[in-house]
């Protein structure tokens, strides 16, 4: 089946401009700027220092922030992509036009992704620019790779939310499921893994654990960032159970990409 890029771009363009017009992009960018700024400045106050300390500690603090905030924002961004159109009654009108379901889905995803990526780059980028006068090139590269992995994590949760929006019978179910997924991936998953590890005193599943971490995009994000930072590696409990052999950026990024493509593919299959 032929895919028409023009149709995808028309949908994507509308989704993106909708988010600019309703000030979604502005609001999310402001949230990112505010928190990133506060964290990079006060992040090491636990150590009794205020002000920018080191790029590694700053990134470590930003990772803790992004891991809560970005999945939530991405899930909220995408949960009504399809179910919203269906509930409003505009889906039939769209599908009666010469556009395929795949094009509609890709267009939605692309447009929402653009809004998300724009906010992440503008928000964290602004803070990056602000920090840049204190950073050398290597530190800036580290910061850039943090931003890139934040984008990838956002895209994977956005992909999950689009899957939810295809499968949910209505918007209420879709929003509930999104929040539940956020709890699962961001709060519960690691706790359960740690719990098992502690209860079985490391007897059960120890070898399996690193792979289980790959089943959670938030964990992949954490590992991607923490493994680059020698200084903070030891601050994180879970990262220490992750063997060096699996800390291959190709593997980690590959896993992240499958979290983007997988749910989206499933969403298309369901939508069809």
């Amino acid at each position: 089946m032929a895919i028409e890029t023009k149709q995808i771009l028309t949908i994507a363009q509308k989704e993106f401009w909708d988010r600019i017009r309703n000030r979604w992009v502005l609001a999310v960018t402001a949230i990112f700027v505010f928190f990133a700024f506060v964290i990079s400045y006060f992040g090491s106050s636990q150590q009794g220092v205020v002000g920018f300390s080191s790029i590694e500690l700053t990134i470590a603090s930003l990772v803790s922030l992004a891991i809560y905030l970005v999945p939530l924002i991405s899930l909220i961004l995408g949960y009504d992509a399809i179910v919203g159109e269906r509930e409003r009654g505009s889906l039939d009108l769209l599908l009666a036009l010469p556009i395929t379901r795949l094009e509609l889905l890709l267009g939605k995803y692309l447009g929402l992704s653009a809004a998300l990526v724009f906010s992440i780059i503008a928000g964290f980028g602004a803070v990056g620019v602000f920090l840049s006068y204190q950073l050398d090139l290597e530190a800036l590269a580290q910061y850039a790779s943090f931003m890139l992995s934040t984008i990838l994590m956002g895209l994977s949760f956005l992909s999950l939310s689009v899957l939810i929006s295809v499968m949910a019978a209505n918007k209420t179910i879709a929003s509930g499921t999104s929040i539940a997924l956020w709890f699962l991936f961001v709060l519960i998953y690691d706790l359960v893994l740690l719990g098992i590890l502690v209860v079985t005193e490391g007897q059960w599943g120890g070898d399996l654990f690193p792979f289980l971490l790959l089943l959670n995009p938030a964990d992949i994000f954490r590992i991607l960032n923490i493994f680059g930072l020698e200084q903070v590696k030891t601050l994180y409990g879970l990262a220490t159970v992750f063997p060096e052999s699996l800390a291959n950026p190709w593997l980690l990024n590959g896993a992240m990409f499958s979290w983007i493509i997988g749910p989206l593919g499933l969403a298309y299959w369901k939508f069809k």
Partner: protein
Amino acid sequence: MKSAIIEVKGVSKRYGEIHAVNAADLVIYKGEIFSLIGHNGAGKSTLFKMMLGLLQPTNGEILIRGKNVNGHAFREVKRRIGYLPENIVFYDHLTGIETLHFIGKLKGADLKTCPSLLDKMGLLKAARRPVRGYSKGMRQRLGFAQALLGEPEILFLDEPTTGLDPAGIREFYQFLQELKEQGVTIILSSHNLAQIQEQVDRIALMKMGDILTVGSVAELRQQLDLPLHIQVRLDPKAKDALRRALSGFAECELEFGEGSLMVTCNTKRKMPLLTTLATTEGVTDIQIQEPSLEDLFLGYVSRGATSQAVSALT
């Protein structure tokens, strides 16, 4: 020579135990105005959506211009199809012109036609206002404008006159006739049967997923042999004279009131009846009420169509 543009072949749609549409067969010809009529839940909207490829039939197939509506080749056909869904919903934050641009782009239509379409629908002044502030009638007009994007060959209109005032409805049907003259095929569904009967070439009567009958309004009237009503105004003194004059119409039902008479009779007796009434002293006015589509519909639905009539017409 009539050429088929839409062919519905043995199409059924089942939802579990529910038969939304049962083995429907239908041919719609190029350039005609065709209407689906039925109560809510009769299967009209389901059939409509299957014709547009929005729903997949459980059995059977639908071809538009020879292309299966669920096939890949249907995309090209779709560019020349206009669709006005029932209770159309737009994106409230977009303006009228932005709405047309968005839909027009997806349809591959010439966007330069958007202002003139809005003008035709009386919406040019509201073109730059968000749809949020549009009245129900304005939304319906905008819905009609978007359906006309890309010079459609086929128009699907689901309950098209919802929200329009009487003047708007009249204008709408005038416009429909213009489109028909340009060779556009129009398929519409409506609850307002009285309104539709003057406007459509043929109708399909649907009940509980079955197509009971298909034909022109005249054909269906003949099939069902529905009675004719004549309302007569008369000088009260002429009552007895009129009763005598109508003695030859024993099979007709006469209902005298104060200065009025209602005659209910077989349509075949129309001309002799009118002649008698017109030549009787004291008759001041005659109004003929032909059986409406409503009568027709109620007749069919309450009595149930005889299998003979169904097979004769479908």
